[in-house]
């Protein structure tokens, strides 16, 4: 059926309908849907704080749950190990992420798509499976070969194997964190290289640079913000790592205990207060790192 059209001077009058209400509804829907998630995050943190406050009401400062937990030497060790292992794995992640991100973003090579897919595995694999796979891998040669076979190590080192040096030891913590954080860093760096203009590097070549010079003088400075994001993300991922750690590094106090392990151990013995306190310490640490990175990033941009 033809719509009813009114005519004026022989032309159809096609007045756009009133859009004000619809526009307002759209904006409201946008804020409700998006805002509900922000609300959830804020409430999660607020809940933790509220719980601790309710527990310490009327108590003296010395019995404040966070101070109590900080007095435990296990917790102090786990804070130290977390800071150390996260920094180590973030550095390792960047060492692979910068070249890999560059190769994926800028170079065209056979098998690139396959490698790209493989790099997603640590992101989509269940964390426990990563830990288990690491554990299994270290049961094979060369990880079980005595080091003395390669190098004349003196004394007890002669019979030492990579397996015994790594599994259930501090290196396992770093390796497990790196295994996952590396993938996130690579993704971030690839995106960073994708976003910068490849023409700049080509100009540098034409201006007389070798590929190495063009990379270090032009391309790398162009992605410095992306590097900051990648290292922050890798660090934060490493801090949150738990499943692979539990399997591959164990949860031995004063040895392979990091903050996420502490939360688990305290919770498993019913010490909810300590678990929540350590959780909040982790929240603060992660937020500090992100704030620092953001702050630097902005200053770098000259704002």
């Amino acid at each position: 059926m033809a719509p009813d059209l009114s005519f004026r001077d022989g032309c159809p009058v096609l007045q756009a309908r009133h859009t004000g209400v619809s526009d307002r509804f759209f904006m409201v829907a946008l804020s409700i849907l998006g805002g509900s998630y922000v609300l959830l995050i804020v409430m999660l943190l607020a809940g933790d704080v509220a719980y601790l406050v309710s527990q310490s009401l009327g108590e003296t400062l010395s019995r404040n749950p966070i101070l109590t937990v900080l007095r435990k030497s296990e917790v102090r060790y786990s804070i130290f190990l977390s800071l150390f292992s996260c920094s180590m794995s973030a550095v390792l992640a960047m060492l692979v992420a910068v070249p890999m991100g560059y190769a994926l973003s800028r170079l065209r090579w056979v098998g690139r798509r396959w490698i790209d897919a493989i790099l997603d595995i640590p992101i989509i694999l269940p964390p426990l499976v990563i830990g288990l796979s690491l554990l299994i891998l270290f049961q094979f040669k060369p990880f079980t070969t005595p080091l003395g076979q390669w190098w004349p190590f003196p004394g007890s080192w002669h019979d030492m194997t990579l397996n015994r040096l790594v599994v259930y030891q501090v290196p396992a913590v770093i390796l497990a964190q790196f295994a996952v954080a590396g993938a996130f860093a690579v993704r971030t760096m690839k995106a960073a290289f994708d976003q910068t203009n490849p023409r700049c590097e080509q100009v540098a070549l034409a201006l007389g640079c070798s590929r190495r010079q063009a990379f270090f003088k032009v391309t790398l400075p162009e992605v410095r913000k992306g590097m900051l994001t990648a290292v922050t993300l890798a660090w934060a991922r490493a801090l949150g790592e738990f499943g692979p750690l539990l399997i591959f590094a164990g949860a031995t106090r004063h040895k392979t205990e990091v903050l996420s392990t502490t939360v688990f151990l305290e919770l498993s013995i019913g010490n909810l207060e300590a678990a929540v306190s350590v959780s909040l310490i982790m929240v603060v640490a992660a937020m500090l790192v992100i704030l620092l990175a953001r702050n630097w990033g902005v200053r770098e941009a000259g704002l």
Partner: protein
Amino acid sequence: MIDVSSLSIAIGKFELRDVSFNVPEGAYGMLMGQTGSGKTTLIEALIGLKKTRAHSRIVIAGRDVTRLPPAERNIGYVPQDGALFSTMTVRGHLAFALDVRRAPAAYIEQRVAELANQLRIEHLLERMPEGLSGGERQRVVLGRALSFHPRVLLLDEPLSALDEDTRNGMYEVLRQVRKSTGVTVLHVTHSFAEAEALADCRYVLKDGKIELQ
């Protein structure tokens, strides 16, 4: 000065086959052609960014550069989008090629001052590219390309993003650069006005072939 013979490039379905042309010394050559005709590909091949097929021969200033990496070709290159380095000051841009060539600091300083004076960008030397106007950006890009005294300058649609007034100003800059340096230019454009204003000789790229007009 720019001698190209039997240049062939294939990228996917796109192909340039047996392109030959010559820009005489000191001339201002204007390369024209429709969008997608392969003008930028041709420029990139001259710079050394695209692999050419066997039998292709590119001779710049009497030297066969066909197999040389871009760095050794000594061609001044002004790309389509300028591609200024976002982390470098204008001074850094002008000094870049000289730094890479390990020129003495005193010479670099003198050359930067000379370029800045010639292109009238002295007041911009300590600025970052962000916030420069279109005309200012193009002057910096031009200065960067000229800094190491190349004998050949390749310009890939250098004026297409500029407004009318700025473009007229740039004509003057380009004429003056050419006069003072004697550089041989190949300038890619699809604008007849630009060709009218600047060209000594015009080349038209069509269906993978070049015609001299």
